[in-house]
């Protein structure tokens, strides 16, 4: 396909969220496929681990600082950092500078990294200027707006633009697409009844669309939604947007 590459970015450093690394490696591979197809060189710094959000959300800031500093050390030399996760990018952009504000030098390094860290769909559409990645999927597709991605980062148009260019796909909006799915990180195991109650609503809205797949930008949410769909023996699949764009075997 034609290389619409933004000449200012030739290599990206890939940040793979811990959930993707540990449980959904195929999502990471789909991200690499799509980025390479877009003509971008992908570098994966092997020392990376986690952005620190789990510790941060549970209030363990001193520990989250350790993760943040490690992240910054791994990624600060990169031209651009791309991650298939709204919540991780939100953590880096919105929380890192504040988390490290006590130490002027680390705060500045955090600001540098946060300015060049992009969420996957945002990177394709806003930085590379691409909406058509040559994807094909025959079926009905619906989209879940995860909280950190849509409200936190303001990214809701870009995924829809990408899905809109998938050949063969019929896009159906679900009711309350941006209502929380109930994952909330540790919330899902600390307050499981409330969490599952919210997931029920999300699953009900997904099923009401008649979609074959629900697509999203955060694997935490999708793991939660997938877990309930599977328990209900539904055939609806929960996929990261990179997977449907890469045309991987679904």
């Amino acid at each position, binding site marked *: 396909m034609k290389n619409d590459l933004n000449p200012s970015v030739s290599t990206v450093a890939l940040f793979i969220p811990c959930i993707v690394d*540990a449980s*959904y*490696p195929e999502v990471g591979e789909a991200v690499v496929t799509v980025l390479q197809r877009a003509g971008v060189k992908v570098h994966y710094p092997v020392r990376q681990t986690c952005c620190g959000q789990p510790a941060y959300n549970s209030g363990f800031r001193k520990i989250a600082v350790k993760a943040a500093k490690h992240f910054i050390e791994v990624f600060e030399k990169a031209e651009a950092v791309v991650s298939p996760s709204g919540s991780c990018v939100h953590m880096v952009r919105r929380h890192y500078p504040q988390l490290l504000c006590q130490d002027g030098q680390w705060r500045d390094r955090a600001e540098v990294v946060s300015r060049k860290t992009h969420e996957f769909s945002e990177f394709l559409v806003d930085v590379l200027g691409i909406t058509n990645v040559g994807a094909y999927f025959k079926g009905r597709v619906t989209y879940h707006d995860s909280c950190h991605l849509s409200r936190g980062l303001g990214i809701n148009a870009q995924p829809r633009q990408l899905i809109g260019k998938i050949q063969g796909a019929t896009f159906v909006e679900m009711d309350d697409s941006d209502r929380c799915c109930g994952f909330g990180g540790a919330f899902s195991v600390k*307050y499981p009844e409330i969490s599952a109650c919210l997931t*029920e609503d999300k699953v009900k809205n997904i099923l009401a669309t008649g979609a074959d797949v629900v697509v999203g930008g955060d694997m935490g949410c999708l793991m939660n939604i997938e877990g309930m769909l599977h328990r209900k023996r539904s055939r609806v699949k929960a996929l990261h947007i990179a997977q449907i764009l890469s045309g991987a075997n679904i």
Partner: protein
Amino acid sequence: MAEIRTEHYRKAARIAVKDTHLHNALRVLQDRLGKGALAAYQKLPEGPGLRQQAHHIRKYAIDHLDILLKSLSEIIQRRGGHVCFAKDGTCALDYVLSVARKHQVKSVVKGKSMLSEELGVNVALEAAHIEAVETDLGEFIVQLAGDSPSHIMAPAAHMTRDRIGRLFADKLGIPFTDDPPALTRAARRALRQKFLDADMGISGCNIACAETGHITVLSNEGNIRMASTLPRVHVVLMGMERITARLTDHDILLRLLSRGAAGQSMAGYVSYIGGARPSSSEKKYEDGPDEFHLVIVDNGRSRILADPDFREILYCIRCGGCLNTCPVYAKVGGHTYGFPYCGPIGAVVTPLMVGIERAKDLCLGETLCGACKDICPVAIDHPRMLLALRAKLAEGDPEWNVTSKHSIESAFYHLWGYFIQNRNRYDVALKISRILQLLLPKRSGMVRRIPPPMQGWTKERNLRPLAKESFSERWRRKPKDRA
């Protein structure tokens, strides 16, 4: 102080999440009021960005609270009104009761006031053998039922019309009906006599004006106007943060308050009250009470004010908008929070008022989805403060009487912190986890049951297991595939 049942959050939530009547009622409420508010912001002539301006107006007021309250107090006293600065609930209640005793008050009519709930005013009045009647329809219903409000704007949101019909038949002696207009007319008839007989009216204050020396009361039913003008004495309960500097601020704040609360351009009744009926030799004033008392209440607010992390929660103008969009509130309802302030505002302010440890479930039992921040008419960042509360719980804070605990979770994250800084260590941890995972029951590749403390997940959901190889291991194994 109101009864505190914040420790029952989990238990109450477990029951509430099965209450489909509650969910249906709150879904209707959220669809109408919550979505209505968001749509109304878009239609503002200044655009939704007006909320940021309102935020700065509130910030200014909170940053200059001492000056503003002084100005308000002086102007009201100059007009012959009485002002009491009450440092806590006991102080406030003592003052209210002393005013009631002085005027031999037998019955009180009340406009809806969350502060009066916080202080437990009705209980105190009843103990002094003074009848206190709520005149807001929702509060009236809740009071008749011996219940407590579950929503800031719609106190009876948790009650079905059938239950209200049976309640009215029982308590008001009318034939059973569940027709809302008929029920409203019955309430109006019952309340009319109460208004006319009342010796004292108690109201809250929406937003006072320091410049002009007025308090304001807003309602859609007109009940607060009536409760504050018919009786001989008017007592206003005002949280010390509910003030703004200039009258021009009200243009923005009241327009946003009305939208945040109910998607309205403006509440039906807006009253500016600056004192009692003036006595003048030239003109005879017929209307209004003989005496006006303003009780400015601290009750923990100055402690919040002193903390730069939490001062922002004092910007709140109690519109209830956050309740109208919160997905957790929609499933657990107001009573679950165990204190008059529920929903996202309650999740922040209740721990700060009653004790962070005592109300810890309120700040932990949220998803941090951020919908509250988006609907707040003064753009308060609730999630930021919830995270700050969680940090206090995890790491301790002597200023807020929180001791960090040596819990399993704390040990887990400390261990996690060790592994996270080094990929090799992290890989070892992953490998160990994969081995342990073999013990877990699965169906078609998904985990069916996880042991404690994470067993909650698998009650209603399966879980994708850890992959045989992490992305990182796959990448390192196949370097030649990488461009």
